[in-house]
């Protein structure tokens, strides 16, 4: 267990250092308002990344999540405006469709034995194409005021969606760390054949995880619509890479078998803090991306060096 936590410790120290520097650089960074707002901004990636931790820990990957966000967003608007469903029902129907998208990924991967990278690369194109086809390049606006509570409002002084993110993170950490489902995830990621030979429900677990990943992306899609007050078909483009970056930065092995929710949350916080802090310090967007790339590489290198020394 200590060895598993070592990466998270490095990451936590790094996060504290970064937060310290950023607070020193700009007096607007370390304010309650700013930090809560950053929490709001990272919720969509966060929800996706938490479920992505499960996917990657089984040795898989889900590239289609960004497209599922786009599809869900479009469907919410279309179901409400064109089909004429009440908005709550429209959002639920859209979430159901997004969840089905994740389920379809799982079926392709478990039933037909397609490698996750290829299966979800294909559905990344497929779902985005559907979103664009359905939207006809039109955006949907003018949602009722109450709908913005989800993406722009507060509950007890904290952004609504941040509650959801925190709750999801806690539940996910418990499932991965303490339950037999979590154990199954690690067993599959380390050695799928042996997991199968031990009578573990390998296919069922993978199907459930890809479905849950689609569900998380779909919920993130609705939150995104509520936050930006509009619906466009290119929403969520590239978000899958942000989520994967957070997961890998958080110490989850891309080969599967290792990783924690705590690590992913730290990864998310670090990335969001860097983005925000650097923009407050006047660094341009390109510079921020470069720096995030550097942080990713450095963290993994440090972690590898420490691990290697620990093992010898």
């Amino acid at each position: 267990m200590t060895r598993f936590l070592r990466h998270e410790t490095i990451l936590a120290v790094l996060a504290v250092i970064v937060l310290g520097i950023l607070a020193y650089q700009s007096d607007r960074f370390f304010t309650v308002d700013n930090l809560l707002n950053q929490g709001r901004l990272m919720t969509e990636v966060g929800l996706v990344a938490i479920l992505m931790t499960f996917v990657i820990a089984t040795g898989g990957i889900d590239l289609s999540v960004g497209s599922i966000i786009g599809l869900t967003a479009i469907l919410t608007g279309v179901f409400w405006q064109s089909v004429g469903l009440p908005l709550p029902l429209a959002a639920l129907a859209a979430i159901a469709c997004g969840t089905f998208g994740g389920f379809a990924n799982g079926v392709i991967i478990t039933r037909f034995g397609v490698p996750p990278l290829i299966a979800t690369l294909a559905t990344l194109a497929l779902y985005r194409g559907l979103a664009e086809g359905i939207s006809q390049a039109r955006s949907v606006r003018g949602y009722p005021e109450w709908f913005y509570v989800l993406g722009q409002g507060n509950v007890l002084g904290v952004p609504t969606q941040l509650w959801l993110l925190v709750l999801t993170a806690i539940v996910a950490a418990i499932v991965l760390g303490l339950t037999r489902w979590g154990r199954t995830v690690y067993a599959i990621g380390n050695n799928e054949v042996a997991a199968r030979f031990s009578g573990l429900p390998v296919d069922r677990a993978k199907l459930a995880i890809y479905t849950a990943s689609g569900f998380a992306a779909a919920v993130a899609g609705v939150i995104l619509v509520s936050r930006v007050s509009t619906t466009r078909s290119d929403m969520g483009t590239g978000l899958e890479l942000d989520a994967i970056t957070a997961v890998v930065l958080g110490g989850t092995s891309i080969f599967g078998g290792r990783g924690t929710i705590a690590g992913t949350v730290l990864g998310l916080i670090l990335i969001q803090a860097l983005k925000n802090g650097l923009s407050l310090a006047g660094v341009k967007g390109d510079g921020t991306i470069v720096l995030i790339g550097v942080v990713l590489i450095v963290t993994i290198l440090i972690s590898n060096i420490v691990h290697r020394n620990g093992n010898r």
Partner: protein
Amino acid sequence: MPGTTDAFISLTGATKSFNGITVLKNVDFDVRPGEVHALLGENGAGKSTLIKIISGLYTPDGGTIRIQGETVSFSSTRDASKRGIATVYQELLLFPELTIAENIFLGAYPKSNWGGIDWDTVRERSRALLDSLDSAELDVDTKVARLSVAQRQRVEIAKALSRDARVLIMDEPTASLAEADVQRLMDVVRALRARGVAIIYVSHRMPEIFALADRVTVLRDGALIGTKEIGEVTEASLVAMMVGRSIDQLFPKPEPIIGDVLLEVEGLRCGRLVRDMTFSVRRGEILGIAGLVGSGRTETALTLFGITPAEAGTIRIDGKTVTIRSPKEARDLGIAYVPEDRGQQGLVKAMTIRQNVSMATIDRLSRGLFIRFADEAARAVEAVKRFGIRARGGIEQPVGQLSGGNQQKVVIAKWLETAPRILILDEPTRGVDVGAKSEIHAIIGELARTGVAIVMISSELPEVLGMSDRVLVMNNGHLVTILDRAEATAESVGAAMTVAKNRKDAA
């Protein structure tokens, strides 16, 4: 007195430690041209360290290496290879997508006048090398991917010979070979010896050692126990040297207590290699399954265990007809399967002993979804004690760090956690050292006495004959015969395997 004068290569006082743990201390070893020198010891005794020093992979911390009397030091395998030392590893290191000829000369291709690779010479010399290994059936243009393990091994040997190897190190060369291929390999080794090659032969299998070796060296816990002429030792004395105690009986089989029929299989079919299998096993009985590799033994087990569910036929347990479509269903019916490939199918090597022992019973060790960690740890501690699993880090040690025998005990422990009524063991002692082997045999015997019906698949005839109450012989997916313990001898079982083969060839 080791013959340092006529030895091709000799080590004196070889010592090596990692992280302050000495794995080889003060070992003398030498091998002469035209000699097969067997190297024996339990896993972890220092055999692999010793051969890695000889092949240049490790630099010893102390001691000297001499080649024909001249002191040398190797800083890489390349250095060693230049001095004529070649190794045929347990896991073969060929490139499957290249042809036999390409593999043999890889890294040392003969050049033509204009500097390109002289393919005609490559193919010609490959042909000659293979012919000299009595392998006329191998075409030099075949891709290695299409070859059997035994054939790949001969390509490896040809590769070593192409570099003018004077010393050939063979690390458990017969571990994954069928009996017929073993005979053929032994002929190759004898031919090499006659040509004056010095051969270091690492193996667990006693019959091979007595058939091949001129001298034998035993290591234990990193120390040299002794080097003897083969005439001076017996199987029992070698085992005693290896384990440091004498093992009274190689197969301690207690008097069986055989009960009613528990498992009945009738007309079982699945794919090409399970054709119309009909047999039964009683409580407390050990049914051995013998047959060549690829005869359908493992496939029969996989069908019973639900990995490849049956296409036809009936399976009855306790008289009730059952269907088995997944390992979980098999487990719930009281069937356990200890698989053939420990590393791939049996264990999750990166996970701990605790997590592996509980893997097949994690749902029973949970309250709702939550794992009862204290119970899980207690079960693991119990298993470590019961089976004598030797692990420095206790139950939190990753199983990948354990020796082969201890890994196998973890797999067995995992399946005994399910309290099986029927236990299928596939090659239960493959790659396991002598001490652990007899411990595993004792465990199997004990289980049978508690009324478990046992099906044991093994390629080692002495094991099948020593352990089984009845022996089922398979060939090419068919059941050939079932022999009682009294009728099952090496001759009768061996004959059953080959007679069937001839009959099939004639048809």
